């Protein structure tokens, strides 16, 4: 069974600090997605990384896919209270149907003003 280990599980920081969330697996994924989920809502896609070593930036968020396509990280620079939420990584399996994703348990981020 493929697993995606996400860390840390909880993160509470002050506004302006930087943070990194990690997503690790022993399995190789064809692509990896990062989602953000707010209470009472469904996950919303932030980014998809496809190529090993790929780096994508979305304003203050930087996403990286490991060279071996087994791990990924999300780095947030100068976090703001609006970044508060649950961040989820999800890997797509080779040969799997679109949407047959392996999810991490999530990182619950709280940014205090």
């Amino acid at each position, binding site marked *: 069974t493929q697993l*995606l280990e996400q860390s840390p599980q909880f993160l509470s920081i002050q506004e302006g600090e930087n943070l990194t969330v990690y997503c690790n697996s022993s399995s190789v994924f064809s692509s990896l997605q990062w989602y953000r989920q707010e209470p*009472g*809502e*469904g*996950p*919303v*896609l932030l980014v*998809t990384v496809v190529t090993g070593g790929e780096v994508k930036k979305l304003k203050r968020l930087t996403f990286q896919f490991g060279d071996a396509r087994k791990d990924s990280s999300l780095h947030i620079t100068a976090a703001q209270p609006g970044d508060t939420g649950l961040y*989820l990584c*999800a890997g797509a399996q080779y040969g*799997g*149907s*679109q*949407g*047959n*994703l*392996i*999810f*991490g*348990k*999530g990182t619950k981020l709280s940014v205090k003003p």
Partner: protein
Amino acid sequence: EAGVTQFPSHSVIEKGQTVTLRCDPISGHDNLYWYRRVMGKEIKFLLHFVKESKQDESGMPNNRFLAERTGGTYSTLKVQPAELEDSGVYFCASSAVGEKLFFGSGTQLSVL
């Protein structure tokens, strides 16, 4: 444009009862997916429809779960009879071919 709509938002039933969850995808999206998150666990894939056909049902836990998508529009997920371990949040998502997934807000199912 309306997003993915799930109904009900919450359902509380007793063990042994039947519950039917509904998902209305974004209009025009051929792909429809069901997921479940049990408390303390990760979101898990249940199944994938392409139009009215089941493309991948490898994540369905057992034969107490029945998913349908009549006419390739809305989908229902019926649990019969419900067991305590079926409690969790059930998410539906839809996508156009080759495009990103849009998730609904989920149905919180509590089996007592």
